[in-house]
């Protein structure tokens, strides 16, 4: 069962049980009112019956009495009984016993009412006779002793009758004589006695039934029967109500249970919902924030830029942040980044800006909306100075960093700022730059892409070609060596020198391919012209690249059966980080019989210390010196020094860029062994047929 089904099931149960409870409440209320109604009817019946008794007794005792009240109460009793027997509750099966009792009650009531009817008749008769006799006695003229005697006796008898009425006791009549007798001849007296005896006889005759009916009415067990009926009804009703109560208890328990479950489920739901919400929030947070610095991240930055009308970005890059990580470790580096983020936020607190972002590892962005260019640059300078002046204290370490900042509001915002940053990194004197279209940086990207494309097709069409420039022995005036130079032939046959594509090429995977082609083709040429030595340029990076290194060794080993007429020129212009590896490379080349030339010495990072670590065979003197030895005395002395130094180490030199006869002569004068340049010959697809040159 799915949770939602379970919940709706429970809710349904709760609802049904609530309905049942309401129904139970109504039923119970109805039941209780029915119960009260019936009990009240019975109680009223009881009280009316008591009133009837009271009426009857009053009627017994009073000479004159209106019977209206008694008739009224009789009627009421009949009505009440009807009302009781019509009670709807008695139609239920479990009240059959009560119904039976009620029928018995009806029987008793009928008997009682019949008795009342009869009693009234007997009572009337007896009372009338008593009243009449009393009146007669009062009218008796007491003319003689006999009359007086009779009068007294009659009085006594009447008293006895009256007592019998009051006490409802027949004993007053049975033991004593209630008739009069006189031997007197007095006619009036005899007439009185006759009437008296007639009525006395009538009274005696009627008295028993009068007393029986009265006693029955007063003593029948109707009241008890009603009481029993009430008790029975109560018992049944309680049983009934107990059953109902039990039912209600069960329903109520179910109700409570399901409500409890609902609450529990609801609580759980809310808890999970909250958890989910938190997870969602933290996910959202991590999606849009940098977890280290708590700044918004690059994604958030991109999203925000899209929503802005006139975005302006200050892109901040930490100069040489790699060094901080390398020297102090990532942990410290991270702390510095955090501190920098805080520094930026605190500084910008008062300024109007959209957000501060961490756009890259060591790169931060500050986004503005519709900010004045001058103001943006001003802020950029402030930020640059702030950071440069700040000391980042991590533990006991005090670290100082510099940043470069590019300001840009020209779309694509990020790319342009990035390009501007790259531009500024080349120039360490300025740390803040504003991107301008005139920087034309973006165009070079297009050009790069074009170049890459060109390289790609050149490789595919075998248009990577080595050109060979002769190297002349100044003493013998003969060509002894050739330097292989890479050329890219365009589809139209035009040749491109490396100046146009090498830098781009170095950043692509095609570099390996081009290097291999050059090596291979140079080897082929070298093998064809065994009288010359050929040299090929390899950069420091190539030496550190294992696959290129391996490729070089393999090519040389596989193509030459004897000592190869191939040399390797290492470009000195690049900084050599790991001399050990370079030395290993040189040693391996020496084992193969390959000489190593140090290229472009005297420019760039020219460092004499190389010679103490590297077994260099030959030093090429940079063209920037050679070109001007005729006109600049300092350059001449530099040449002289390099020559002397090389002589000291028993190294020969090659002078580059020899373009005039004059220079060639000076070089020969100094004693430089080899020279190359346009004066002797431009690079060509094949070596010259004639090795002799004119000096």
């Amino acid at each position, binding site marked *: 069962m799915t949770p939602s089904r379970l919940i709706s099931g429970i809710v349904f149960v709760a609802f049904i049980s609530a309905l049942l409870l309401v129904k139970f409440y109504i039923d119970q209320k109805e039941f209780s009112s029915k119960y009260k109604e019936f009990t009240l009817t019975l109680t009223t019946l009881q009280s009316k019956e008591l009133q009837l008794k*009271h009426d009857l*007794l*009053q009627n*017994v*005792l*009073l*000479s*004159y*009495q*209106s*019977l*209206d009240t*008694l*008739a*009224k109460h*009789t*009627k009421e009793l*009949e009505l009440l009984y009807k009302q009781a027997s019509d009670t709807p509750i008695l139609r239920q099966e479990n009240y059959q016993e009560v119904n039976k009792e009620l029928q018995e009650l009806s029987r008793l009531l009928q008997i009682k009412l*019949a008795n009342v*009817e*009869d009693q*009234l*008749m007997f009572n*009337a*008769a007896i*009372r*009338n*006779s008593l*009243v*009449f006799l009393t*009146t007669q006695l009062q009218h008796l003229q007491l003319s003689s002793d006999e009359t007086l005697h009779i009068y007294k006796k009659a009085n006594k008898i009447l008293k006895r009758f009256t007592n019998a009425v*009051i*006490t*409802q*006791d027949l004993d007053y009549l049975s033991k004593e004589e209630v008739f009069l007798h006189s031997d007197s001849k007095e006619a009036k007296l005899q007439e009185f006695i006759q*009437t008296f005896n*007639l*009525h006395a006889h*009538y009274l005696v005759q009627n008295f028993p039934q009068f007393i029986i009916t009265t006693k029955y009415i*007063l003593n029948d067990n109707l009241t008890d029967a009603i009481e029993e009926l009430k008790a029975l009804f109560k018992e049944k009703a309680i049983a009934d109500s107990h059953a109902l109560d039990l039912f209600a208890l069960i329903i109520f328990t179910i109700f409570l249970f399901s409500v409890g479950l609902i609450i529990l489920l609801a609580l759980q739901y809310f808890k999970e919902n909250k958890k989910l919400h938190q997870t969602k929030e933290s996910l959202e947070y991590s999606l849009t924030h940098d977890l280290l610095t708590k700044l918004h991240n690059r994604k958030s930055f991109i999203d925000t830029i899209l929503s802005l009308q006139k975005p302006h970005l200050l892109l901040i890059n930490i100069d040489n942040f790699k060094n901080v990580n390398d020297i102090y470790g990532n942990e410290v580096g991270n702390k510095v980044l955090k501190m920098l983020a805080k520094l930026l936020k605190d500084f910008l607190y008062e300024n109007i800006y959209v957000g501060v972002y961490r756009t890259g590892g060591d790169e931060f962005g500050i986004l503005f909306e519709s900010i004045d260019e001058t103001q943006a640059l001003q802020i950029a300078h402030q930020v640059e100075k702030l950071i440069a002046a700040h000391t980042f204290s991590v533990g006991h370490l005090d670290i100082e960093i510099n940043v470069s900042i590019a300001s840009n509001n020209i779309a694509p915002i990020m790319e342009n700022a990035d390009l501007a940053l790259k531009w500024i990194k080349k120039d360490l004197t300025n740390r803040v730059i504003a991107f301008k279209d005139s920087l034309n940086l973006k165009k070079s990207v297009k050009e790069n892409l074009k170049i890459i494309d060109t390289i790609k097709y050149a490789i595919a069409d075998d248009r990577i070609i080595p050109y060979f420039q002769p190297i002349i022995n100044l003493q013998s005036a003969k060509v002894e060596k050739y330097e292989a130079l890479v050329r890219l032939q365009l589809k139209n046959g035009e040749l491109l020198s490396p100046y146009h594509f090498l830098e781009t090429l170095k950043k692509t995977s095609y570099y390996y391919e081009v290097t291999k082609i050059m090596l291979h083709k140079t080897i082929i040429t070298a093998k064809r012209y065994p009288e010359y030595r050929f040299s090929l340029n390899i950069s420091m990076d190539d030496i550190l690249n294992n696959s290129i290194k391996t490729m070089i060794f393999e090519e040389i080993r596989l193509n030459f059966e004897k000592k190869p007429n191939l040399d390797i020129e290492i470009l000195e212009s690049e900084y050599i980080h790991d001399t050990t590896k370079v030395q290993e490379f040189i040693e391996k080349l020496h084992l193969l019989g390959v000489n190593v030339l140090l290229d472009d010495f005297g420019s760039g990072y020219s460092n004499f210390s190389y010679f103490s670590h590297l077994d260099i065979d030959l030093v090429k003197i940079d063209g920037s010196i050679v070109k001007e030895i005729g006109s600049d005395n300092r350059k001449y002395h530099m040449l002289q020094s390099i020559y002397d130094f090389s002589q000291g180490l028993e190294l020969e030199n090659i002078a580059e860029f020899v373009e005039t006869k004059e220079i060639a002569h000076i070089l020969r004068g100094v004693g430089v062994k080899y020279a190359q340049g346009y004066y002797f010959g431009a690079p060509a697809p094949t070596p010259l047929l004639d090795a002799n040159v004119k000096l």
Partner: protein
Amino acid sequence: MVKLLFLILFIITYTNAKEPILPIPLQLSADLQKAKLGKMLFEDPLFSQDNSTSCLSCHNIYSGGADTKEVSSGFNNMQGDIHSPTVLNAVYNFRQFWNGRAADLKEQIDGPIHNKVEHNMDKTLIEQRLNSSALYKKEFSKIYHIQTIGYTHFVDALVAFEKTLTTPNAKFDRYLRGELQLEPKELEGYKLFKQYGCITCHNGINIGGNSFQKMGTFKEYKTARSYPDRSHVTHKISHKNVFKVPTLRNISLTAPYFHDASAKSLEEAVEKMSIFNLGIHLCKEEIDTIVVFLHTLEGETPAILEMQ
């Protein structure tokens, strides 16, 4: 215990004694509209099989409310089996009919309506006749807001009318209310009425009509034929000749008297009662005096009968 109770009651009741006869109330709680409609029904012979007999035929409400004949004649001129009692003040009777077989006026109406020798009708026939009468349809719909008249509405209207048939302001009632003094002879008659025990059965608001008594309590009352007495209801032999005590209101107007209409005059009725029910012989003077009192029980004609 019972004896003590009797004594206490004896004392209480005697100290609180009042007159056992009560005057007819002057205010009636009746629906006059229904009563007027009831009057139309009461006087209309439409509600007997042969259109011969109305209620009024046997209950002359304009004079005494009873029939002057020994027994009334109804449907097909057939004779009833008992002397018609008055309908005036019948509302105050504890039960209806001589033998009390109907509990109230509503139950009573069923009797004569269905009686073969009286109206000889049934429920459906009455409804038929009512509903085919434009006048009754109009009147009934006015009061009961109904389209079809039912038997219950017919009974209801009749009962409403009968409830208004009371005769207040009898001389004796006004005496009881202290509005006037009775003549000495009338007062003497009332005294005798009480002293000889007539009051025992003729008491209350209707001076009777609130208990059953045997005709011939003291001396057996014999009649040529049998009448539908109380034993017809209770099936007790002892209830032979037991009847509801009749009202004495307007008694001077409702001759002949008794269930068998055997007494043609009030004097004769008083004499017979004293012999058979009281076991005494009244002299003519006493009878006359009582009759004088009985005349004070004549009330006013019911107000409804004088309305237009």
